[in-house]
């Protein structure tokens, strides 16, 4: 099977891609509709191959530049890259108590995650539902400088268990030594913004 699509490169030149088997070719006269249809099909696998190594490593929360975080006094985000998989390990601390939880997302395919970790705020009576499954999608954006994650997480409230859509973007800041996590909730009118600084492992 051979597929063709059309797009514009950064100089505005109309180009096309032909993907046949494992090969990728450019053909000059593909129409725009073809691009749109096939772009969706292609986006995930293309993104999957494009993990940005700069995102990997240990990132430490800078509380002064972040939304107030209650119930946790420290937060390290350890990003591991394995092909299309991105492992987001949350090393959380409350006084002497340490908790580590890892969310694994796949930029190649949507997944179902058991006990997807949501950074809770101690002051709110919203609780994770043990053993629950969370549909998760992940995608590289902005030239692989942003990792977008969408998850629909079940939460227990005082009235019921209900889904909360969580939209996250992990954005590498210029210089690759800082990371910004922006999180939106389907239930919240105000974004949560966390700023991290890269640190050497073991620190």
């Amino acid at each position, binding site marked *: 099977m051979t597929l063709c699509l059309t797009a514009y490169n950064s100089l505005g030149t109309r180009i096309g891609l032909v993907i046949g088997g494992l090969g990728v070719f450019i053909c000059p006269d593909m129409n725009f509709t073809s691009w749109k249809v096939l772009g969706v099909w292609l986006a995930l696998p293309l993104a999957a191959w494009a993990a940005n190594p700069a995102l990997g490593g240990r990132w430490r929360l800078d509380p002064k530049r972040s939304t107030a975080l209650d119930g946790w006094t420290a937060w390290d985000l350890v990003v591991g890259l394995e092909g299309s998989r991105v492992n987001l390990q949350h090393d959380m601390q409350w006084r002497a*108590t340490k908790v580590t939880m890892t969310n694994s997302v796949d930029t190649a395919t949507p997944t179902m995650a058991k006990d997807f970790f949501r950074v809770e705020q*101690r*002051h709110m009576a919203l609780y994770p539902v043990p053993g629950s499954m969370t549909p998760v999608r992940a995608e590289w954006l902005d030239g692989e400088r942003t990792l977008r994650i969408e998850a629909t997480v079940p*939460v227990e409230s005082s*009235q*019921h268990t209900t889904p909360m859509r969580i939209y996250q973007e992990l954005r590498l800041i210029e210089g690759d030594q800082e990371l910004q996590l922006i999180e939106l909730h389907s*239930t*919240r009118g105000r974004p949560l913004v966390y700023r991290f600084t890269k640190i050497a492992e073991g620190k």
Partner: protein
Amino acid sequence: MHRFITVLLSIVLLPASLAAAGAVPGSAERAAWVMHFDGDWQVAKGLPEKILLVSLQGLANRTAPRLYVVHPKDFQWEITEPLFEFYQRKHHVTFTEIKTAEAALALFAKYAKGYVVWEPAVSASMNVAFTLAGLEDAVVITAAQIAQVEAHGLKKIDDLRGRYTGQTDAQIYRDAYTRYWSRCTHESIMLMGGHAGAVRMPAMADWGVRQKMFFHDLSANPIHPEEVALNKKLYSELVPLATVFGWHSYAKDTEEQQTTLLSSYGLRMEGLHNLPNLSFNCQFSFTPGFKFKNNHHVALDAKLTAEKKVYLSFVQSDSIGIGVWTKPGRGKLPFGWQVTMNWTKFSPAALEYFHESATKNDYFIGGLSGPGYMYPNHIPADKFELLMQDARKLMATLDEHVMEIMDNSAADGNVGNADLTKETVDRYYAAFPDVIGFINGYGPARTRDLRDTRAMISYDYYIDPRRPREEVAADLNELIAINSKRPYFLLVHVRESNDVNSLVEITRQLDGPVEIVPVDVFLKLAASNQTYTTRYQLPTDPKHFKGF
């Protein structure tokens, strides 16, 4: 059994006995003295003089209320100044100011028989010295103060320097136990912990000295097994329903660990370690004719019907002597205040002051968990009813219709929970048939129930004073969005040092039809339409601290 009956009688008769020992009629004019403390509690600077003075205060106030201390406005207990004014106005006390320790000694050294020397390099020696001070009528000093107190005719009773050098706290307190415990009161004990290290704040020591308590700061942290063992021994040898005054050591264990431990012996906590002037306060009864009259908004047997809206209620439970009460804006919103009910026994004037200065929006509720601070999941079954009998009496005296419960034994930030087992909930429903309802938690919790007309609702939100107000509004709006059924009952705990003005601003940013109601109305409405789940602590719920 005989011992137990004696204790019960002593609890019931305590206010009367206090009155007989030196209660001051509201109309009688009398003289007393006042000192204004600064905020320097550093071991290397201001602490030794304050220790001398609070031990002297405990002795001077043994037989009559003679010495009162006013603390700076930024002291944790902000009521010392308003209460000072209250004593003058309502009890006709004429205070003469004492400006120096020297002047205090000149006036009150006659109430001491001598001095005991503690060693700042051995921190536990301070508590041993306080114990000895109560038993032997001594002031507590460091070596540098010997000449000063001897100039006032005081003789050495004991010198702890060198005795405990190199020993662990467990060893030191074991020695103190052997020497002094049998002579100390067994109706209470002084957990003189709190601040540790370069700053210590034993402002409650006057009370322990006056009452001849055993002072210690033994750990309830399982990583200190020797201290825990001795702590257990002491708690087990207190009389039933005894009180642990003071607070846990910030350097050794947690509030949750210590409160869990003492609750497991059916004891109650009255803090903090820096609560001042109890040796003075305990000697005043309520003014003649005074009767607690709460600002009830709904009758006990009333039936209300909730509309399809959000009902929000604010409660503060960090003891009304701390924080919000003296902050700007009180009275602008309906507010529930958890009263430290035991103050009826040893600080009645403070309770009268709060009731006198209450606005129509201030509503008092009972707690915390019973006649004092305790964790009910750990109260032995055979002591629960006896404790709650006491709580019912205190609530009746204070005209309170709502009981607040808190059990943080399994809590730890986002890890753990603050919930009640079904067995505990059953006990409360059985013990308090005549309340409007119950509230639970400190931080958020998820114990909820409705039986007959009595709802039990946990906090859905906790307002940290440091959290930006726009985030608080966003949090509350998120809870309102997620709890989409109407009515939604949103119970909010307000941490001690918030101010009401900022809460008014938050309520203006809330989404949807929201009504702020007093907590008695809130519970009545919650009883009319159970849109919340019934839930108790589950065995599978996370428990950070698994007990001893």
